[in-house]
């Protein structure tokens, strides 16, 4: 076949293809209503949709729409608003909460949601057999911890009481000022007893599923799509505009971004770092950027030389230019972490204690000399451990370079596959390890109780008794002002001892189609589908 005829064939074939495709797709009628179907990129494939056993963010995005807790959150200002509970009251000592459930709250097959549903669910959360990784969210409930650890086997000893079918009384261990905020967490959502007892582990399959959210599970094809549709029995179903929402599990951010550009998605879960500069120039308004409740940092292993030396840790912390990292390396609107708790967590605004930029390099040099390593002489080569990811790699490379330039010290980088990395981190088999902490709930406690002596997530081996006391006392303090003052003291100790090297406060960078209405960017990244609708642009 000659080249010309080949090209002709190609043209013919592509024309035919085009014709057949265009006849397959029905022409949308401009007059007809806009289809209310939302397509979302949702990160990884959900492990499950059982509120008590899941841990991930993709799961939460779906679960918060197909279940509803006692208290909801206003997506605009993140204030607690009535959910299943119409109203609530708190006792004087702050240890007893009484929730008044709305009468018209219903499960997706029509049963009413009652106080005993919540008791059943919270017992399930705490039961050892459930093996819930978020069981500690129930430890604020009286005797919750003991019950979970099996020291107590009678669920009646838990601080839970159904006064009547629509009144629930909850007793807490301590006055927990952020308890209402906690109730939005999926681990404290109610689940349907009869369904679970009937179907066991398979109750979250769409054919078996019963929930109480504004939406209910319609379809779940693994690694393909999870579809939710409005719950016909939802008490506030008039607010719901969407007829369907599709959560697409997409592992790669690059793929998501391309699907968004091809208009297959209304929003993406995250953007690849390298695409940020391109989207930041976008003028159509689809690019969204806002701070996020999380801190990116490095662990120092305080149990091994030379990082058991506080001055070395201080020198390393002061020697990096956080501003250059966020401005030139990550470039996603992150904020240099001059503290550990992200500013604005539960209203708490910690003081800056670390330099934003490289202004204290001289001091860093001096500290290093005081530690006995003038100009880095004698300091063993440091090892930075990170889990395999291009972003972590880039940041580590930049920090490695800053240490070399500013302090004259050498370090090597090690990337490890995720589980190996976790293993090494948790067995303290590292010198410096990359980490990130995203808030479980909107309160400074979620960040600061990590560093208590032998804390489960304290991988540095750090221990300071006055710090431990401060965190313990904050749990009992009800006055917000005094409480924040305690947290500030804790922050000060933390940033003096530096078991961690705070780098930046996370930001969210994503894309949102202009057709989506009722989506409010917020620090917790909560976007209930209930308020969302589609308009044609």
């Amino acid at each position, binding site marked *: 076949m000659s080249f010309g005829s080949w090209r002709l064939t190609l043209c013919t074939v592509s024309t035919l293809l085009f014709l057949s495709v265009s006849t397959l797709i029905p022409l949308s009628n401009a007059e007809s209503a806009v289809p209310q179907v939302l397509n979302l990129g949702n990160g990884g494939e959900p492990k499950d949709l059982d509120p008590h056993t899941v841990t991930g963010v993709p799961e939460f995005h779906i679960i918060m729409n197909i279940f509803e807790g006692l208290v909801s959150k206003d997506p605009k200002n993140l204030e607690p608003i009535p959910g299943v509970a119409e109203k609530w009251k708190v006792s004087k000592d702050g240890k007893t909460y009484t929730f008044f459930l709305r009468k018209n709250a219903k499960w997706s097959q029509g049963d009413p949601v009652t106080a005993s549903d919540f008791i059943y669910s919270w017992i399930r959360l705490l039961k050892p057999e459930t093996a819930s990784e978020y069981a500690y969210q129930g430890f604020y409930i009286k005797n919750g911890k003991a019950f979970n650890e099996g020291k107590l086997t009678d669920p009646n000893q838990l601080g839970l009481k159904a006064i009547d079918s629509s009144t629930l009384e909850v007793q807490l261990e301590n006055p927990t000022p952020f308890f209402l905020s906690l109730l939005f967490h999926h681990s404290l959502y109610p689940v349907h007893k009869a369904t679970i007892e009937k179907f066991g582990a398979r109750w979250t399959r769409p054919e078996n599923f019963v929930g109480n959210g504004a939406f209910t599970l319609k379809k779940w094809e693994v690694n393909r799509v999870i579809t939710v549709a409005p719950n016909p029995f939802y008490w506030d179903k008039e607010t719901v505009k969407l007829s369907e929402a599709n959560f697409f599990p997409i592992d790669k951010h*690059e793929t998501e971004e391309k699907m968004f550009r091809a208009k297959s998605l209304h929003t993406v879960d995250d953007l*690849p*770092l*390298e*695409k940020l*500069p*391109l989207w930041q120039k976008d003028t159509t308004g689809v690019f969204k950027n806002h701070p996020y409740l999380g801190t990116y940092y490095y662990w120092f292993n305080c149990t091994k030389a030379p990082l058991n030396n506080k001055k070395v840790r201080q020198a390393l912390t002061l020697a990096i230019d956080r501003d*250059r990292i966020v401005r*030139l*390396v990550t470039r996603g609107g992150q904020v240099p972490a001059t503290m550990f708790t992200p500013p604005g967590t539960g209203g708490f605004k910690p003081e800056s204690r670390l330099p934003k930029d490289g202004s204290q390099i001289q001091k860093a040099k001096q500290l290093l000399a005081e530690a006995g390593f003038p100009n880095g002489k004698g300091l063993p080569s440091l090892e930075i451990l990170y889990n*395999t*990811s*291009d972003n972590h*790699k*880039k940041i*580590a*490379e*930049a920090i*490695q*370079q800053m240490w070399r330039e500013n302090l004259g010290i050498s370090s*090597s*980088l*090690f*990337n*490890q*596959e995720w589980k*190996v990395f976790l293993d090494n981190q948790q067995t303290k088999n590292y010198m410096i390890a990359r980490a990130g902490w995203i808030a479980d709930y909107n309160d400074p406690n979620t960040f600061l109780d990590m560093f208590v002596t032998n804390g489960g997530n304290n991988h540095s081996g750090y221990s300071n008794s006055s710090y431990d006391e401060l965190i313990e006392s904050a749990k009992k303090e009800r006055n917000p002002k005094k409480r924040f003052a305690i947290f500030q003291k804790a922050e000060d100790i933390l940033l003096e001892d530096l078991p961690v090297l705070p780098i930046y406060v996370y930001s969210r960078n994503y894309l949102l189609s202009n057709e989506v209405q009722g989506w409010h960017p917020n620090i917790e990244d909560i976007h209930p589908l209930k308020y969302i609708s589609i308009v044609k642009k």
Partner: protein
Amino acid sequence: MSNSLWSDAWARLQKNKLAVFGAIFLTLEILLCVLTPWIAPYGFETQNLELTLARPSFAHWFGTDNLGRDLFTRILYGGRISMAVGIIASLISVVVGVIYGAISGYVGGKTDTILMRIVDILYALPFIFMVIILMVYFGRNILLLFVALGLTQWLTMARITRGQVISLKQKEFVDAARSVGVKTRYIILKHLIPNTLGPVIVYLTLTIPSVILEEAFLSFLGLGVQAPMASWGTLISSGVEVMEIAPWILLFPALMLSLTLFSLNFLGDGLRDALDPKGARD
């Protein structure tokens, strides 16, 4: 193999322009790789955060990457790694494969059956699984990873050698050696292995590219060399991410990799034709 056969082959090889081009290119490249520390215009880890993703210019011939490092320098250093991986891993696969195959083919019988069945089994193991196991155990040691890469490649080499040895075994000179009482080990080392070298050399030129590609695949999974050192594989996979913003970051390393693999292929084809004149009639 007689000297004249080698010199005949050499003469034929010289007539093949593409093969000569390949050989020259590879020689130049190896030279560049060896001399990299002296000729590279910048350090491979020297960053310039104010000049990230710069276009190719006089100061930076191939532009800069996303941390403002000179891409030309990084390609030179990356070439060192990739070529080293290719050569070391291939040599390992040759040594293991040739010895294994030669023993299997020469001894024959039950031994042959068992040895070849083992090869069959290893063939059936999904490569990716090996990779993840290797990643878990050897993640921290790049040299061991090279060895591991070589060890995943020796199977084909063993099969080729075995086939070659079996066909040579029936030839007169082996019988002659055997009839005068030469030891098996000596026959394998002195007669059979040298005579299988032809096909093995050809296959070697094909193994090197595939090992280089495997390293790239590992790099894509985050398993290759440790940053900030780079191989062509890591350079390419990070180039893919910025291809819409700075296509040259993908283009140059991909070009270098392709040219190298082209050269190896040409050289391999040329060697095959040279060593086996029967097939080179066009």
